[in-house]
């Protein structure tokens, strides 16, 4: 009987490891830190040697090398230039030929689609409506997420209208859903600690709530996703809000995916699934087949928590999201979260990640306009995410109509992620997208939380500067205020949909 050797790969290494031997002190930190097996110490020759084929370009070794002796670069031995068949295409074809599998990636869409934030510019005050100096005058970044009443009634100088439950945020950002299992407990703790300290919220994603995180319940938004992982009454009670996940920007139309390698004892216990089993969330929520079904679930959750917590519904930014959002608002949701096509993920089929969904800028503008036209904008708060990179993106998003922004990729980058996209392997060398105890300890929650707090503190100041520059001293005054935006390099149609004037007008 003939046996066959596995198919040999024709692919050259994607990265090259360059080591300056004059600077290398043989400390072997690169060896311990590389989780992909690309660095090795040869005892006999007293040399550090690299196996380029294993390098994934995460730069962990480079970052920790005490003498900066390492340089990780894209492999210069590139294929002949071809605008149609790029290196990426050639690599993907080869990998599928070798494995016969679905191409899987981590983090968000990395293709060169236009970034509409970069086509939008902010106003600044000049002669009339002078700027406000955030260092000298009070600025209000506080915002409340939740359903606002149609009108307010007063009695005896006090508010008589009963308000729906609100989430108070000290600044208009929150940490978006990243599931426990896709990341480890140390990262979850850091997000929770930073969110608590900054007076914002963090989102459990569909990983459930680990028992060590119950103490951060007050700042948590818990997710009820299609797999219903980890959903039980205490889970709902502990949180400050509940989010029904219909979809996510990285993979609209399909469910979450946690490869079995990453499901260890603790993840298994929290998600309530067997150890080592792939956690594949169903594509739809199997009890939601119509908007009426969604309304049923929304109110079931509200009943279960005695109407004390806002219920959010998260959808991916897709073609008809305006109509969908309208339906969701009417179904009783307090918050609608929209996740654009740049949204990150721990694992998604590459084809879906890179080709499905629409930019958040359009989704946001379309949803905000539609809800206003229907006179129901006040019924929901809009939270948007999917590639929010900086405080300017946040300000632009609010001007376009958002109440707050969801951050996830930005947060992970702040604690070390270098977007090497190896999340599905569970070998994250930065200790983020892995549950391997050897690697997970590389995130010290205190260190990571400090970095996140620093990030948000910087953004907070920047937002105030930009607002002040526009002569605005409260974030509420910017919401939906599209007149404070101008666009450059967009077509008339795009301008129309965004509801923004071109620069010069």
């Amino acid at each position, binding site marked *: 009987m003939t046996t066959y050797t596995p198919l040999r790969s024709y692919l050259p290494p994607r990265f090259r490891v360059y080591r300056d031997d004059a600077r290398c002190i043989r*400390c072997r*930190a690169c060896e311990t830190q590389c989780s992909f097996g690309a660095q090795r110490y040869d005892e006999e020759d007293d040399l550090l040697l690299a196996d380029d084929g294993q390098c994934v370009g995460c730069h962990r070794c480079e970052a920790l090398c*005490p*003498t900066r002796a390492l340089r990780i670069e894209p492999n210069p031995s590139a294929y002949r230039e071809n605008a149609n068949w790029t290196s990426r295409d050639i690599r993907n074809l080869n990998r599928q030929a070798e494995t016969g599998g679905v191409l899987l990636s981590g983090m968000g869409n990395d293709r060169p689609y236009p970034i509409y934030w970069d086509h939008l510019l902010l106003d600044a005050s000049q002669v009339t409506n002078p700027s406000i100096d955030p260092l000298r005058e009070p600025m209000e970044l506080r915002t409340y997420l939740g359903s606002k009443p149609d009108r307010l009634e007063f009695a005896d100088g006090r508010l008589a209208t009963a308000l729906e439950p609100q989430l108070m945020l000290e600044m208009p950002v929150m940490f978006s859903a990243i599931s426990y299992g896709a990341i480890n407990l140390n990262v979850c703790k850091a997000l929770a600690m930073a969110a608590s300290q900054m007076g914002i919220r963090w989102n459990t994603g569909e990983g459930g709530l680990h028992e060590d995180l119950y103490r951060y319940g007050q700042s948590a938004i818990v997710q009820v996703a299609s797999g219903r992982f980890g959903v039980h009454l205490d889970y709902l009670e502990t949180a400050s809000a509940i989010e029904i996940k219909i979809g996510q920007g990285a993979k609209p139309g399909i469910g979450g995916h946690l490869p079995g390698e990453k499901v260890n004892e603790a993840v298994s216990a929290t998600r309530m699934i067997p150890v080592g089993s792939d956690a594949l969330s169903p594509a739809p929520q199997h009890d939601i087949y119509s908007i009426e079904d969604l309304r049923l679930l929304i109110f079931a959750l509200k009943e279960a928590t005695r109407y004390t917590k806002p219920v959010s519904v998260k959808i991916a930014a897709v073609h008809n999201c305006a109509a969908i959002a309208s339906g969701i608002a009417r179904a009783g949701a307090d918050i609608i979260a929209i996740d654009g096509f740049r949204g990150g993920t721990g694992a998604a089929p590459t084809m879906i990640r890179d080709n499905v969904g629409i930019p958040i800028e359009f989704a946001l503008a379309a949803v905000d306009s539609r809800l206003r036209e229907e006179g129901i904008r006040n019924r929901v708060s809009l939270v948007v995410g999917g590639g929010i990179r900086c405080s300017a993106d946040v300000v632009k998003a609010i001007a376009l109509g958002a109440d707050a922004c969801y951050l996830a990729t930005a947060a992970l980058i702040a604690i070390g992620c270098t977007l090497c996209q190896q999340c599905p392997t569970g070998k994250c060398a930065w200790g983020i997208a892995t549950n391997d105890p050897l690697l997970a*300890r590389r995130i010290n929650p*205190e260190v990571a939380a400090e970095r996140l707090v620093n990030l948000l503190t910087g953004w907070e100041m920047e937002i105030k500067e930009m607002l002040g520059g526009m002569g605005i001293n409260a974030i509420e005054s910017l919401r939906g205020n599209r007149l404070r935006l101008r666009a450059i390099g967009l077509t008339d149609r795009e301008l129309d949909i965004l509801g923004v004037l071109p620069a010069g007008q």
Partner: protein
Amino acid sequence: MAAIRANEEFCIGCRLCEVACMAQHSACKDLVKALRPGRPRPLPGTVVEWEGHRSVSISCRHCEDAPCVTACLTGAMHHREDGRVEVDREQCVGCWTCVLVCPYGAIRRGEDGHVASKCDFCPGRERPACVEACPNRALTLEVEA
């Protein structure tokens, strides 16, 4: 007296603490120059130990009632004025009685066969070099309130 706390939960086994210690205790403190391969290097005063996926860097605790000081045959092991335990390199004869009694295993036999080697708490530095070098705060300085 301030002390180095070693937190086994967050040690990532990178051994940058050892590297920083060796550089600090070399004649020329430049990392690259001091630790060139082939050049003799001092034994680090803090050493990373491993058990499976766990690691931690252990250094001398500078005990007030130090067993090594009591046991030292020659009086080489002594308390400095600042309270730290130090080896008088001229006086040490390498009997290793200190290695025999240190419950932390924090003293190493010098390769020359003579001088007991251990952490000296980096005299002259505001913070020991290992604490500053640790990228994950697995080594922190605990100061008295």
